[in-house]
């Protein structure tokens, strides 16, 4: 292993943050989600903490194992973010709220995770499907995208008939 920029548990720590954020978000928007969801996410975050401790106490010499466990956990957190976004958009049919969630949480979460995984994997001898080196400058583009999506979603959320009216005016 040539260079380790940070311990793989940092990926798990990001995953824990995501689970905690989703737990609080689903508690704040309790009418939109099942009652048990915040607690499920809290347990998931707690499990992540437990796994970090297990890594520290028992798996410290097994670097590859630690990496794959952490990557799996972060992937689970990201999948949950995606699923939550789809749930709002498809099951609840709240496209504007789904847009806000996408711009404010889902896109930043995915891009930051990808950035960390990329910087961790590139240059290390961990066998993994090819992953490009993601430049830090790409975050500017991601941030711009987020702002556009977020602005549009907020506008549609505040004025749901805005798009319809525009079409009617053109006609």
């Amino acid at each position, binding site marked *: 292993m040539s260079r380790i920029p*940070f*311990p793989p*548990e*940092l990926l*798990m*720590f990001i995953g*824990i*943050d995501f689970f*905690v954020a989703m*737990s*609080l978000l689903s*508690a*704040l928007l*309790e009418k939109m989600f099942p009652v048990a969801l*915040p607690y499920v996410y*809290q347990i998931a*975050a*707690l499990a*992540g*903490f437990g796994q*970090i*401790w297990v*890594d*520290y106490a028992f798996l*410290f*010499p097994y670097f590859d194992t630690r990496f794959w466990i952490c990557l799996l956990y972060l992937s689970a957190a990201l999948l949950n973010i995606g699923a939550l976004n789809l749930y709002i958009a498809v099951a609840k049919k709240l496209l504007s709220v789904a847009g806000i969630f996408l711009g404010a949480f889902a896109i930043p979460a995915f891009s930051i995770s990808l950035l960390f995984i990329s910087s961790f994997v590139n240059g290390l001898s961990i066998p993994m499907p090819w992953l490009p080196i993601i430049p830090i400058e790409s975050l500017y583009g991601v941030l711009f995208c987020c702002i556009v999506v977020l602005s549009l979603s907020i506008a549609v959320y505040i004025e749901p008939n805005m798009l319809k009216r525009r079409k009617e005016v053109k006609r």
Partner: protein
Amino acid sequence: MNEKSQNKSKRLLRIFLLLISSVLVVTASASVLNYLYMQASPITAETAKVQFVTAEDSEAAGANIGTNGTYVSFNSMAGWPNATRVYQAAVGIKNFDTASRNITLIFDSWSGDTDQIEFITVIVRDTAGGTQQGSTINVGQQGSSTGKITIPAGTTWVVEWSIKWKAGALSTNAVSVTLQLLVEGE
């Protein structure tokens, strides 16, 4: 309190508890992650570059140099009441490295009949009775040391002990002294 405000309170309490739980989980995880950053592996053992070696008076002082030359104890050092006894080269300090090293010999602690001691001094010299290196260590004085001294590569210096008991000291009186040798860049 009506039902609406009760529900509101319950909701607030639930969110507050979730918030507390979240803070705890994240803080605990972060602290373990911090440990992971601090854990060093592997830590290997290597030969000390500066070691204690025997000198002219080592046998008289009962010097017992530990394995690897990183420890020395004197089992038969003695002083006289109202007169100074000097072990000019109780033990040697040798730099086995190819580069010079900064070393400091410092007083650590002492115990026993310390009130019966007139003085015990320790001096590092280049040879027995030769040039003094650094300052004199006054045993019993906290922080007393030779100061930082540079021992050239391949050189052996000697440690001189001077002991003087008070006039009323008895043969049953005894003290134990501990010094530390600090080696920079080991």
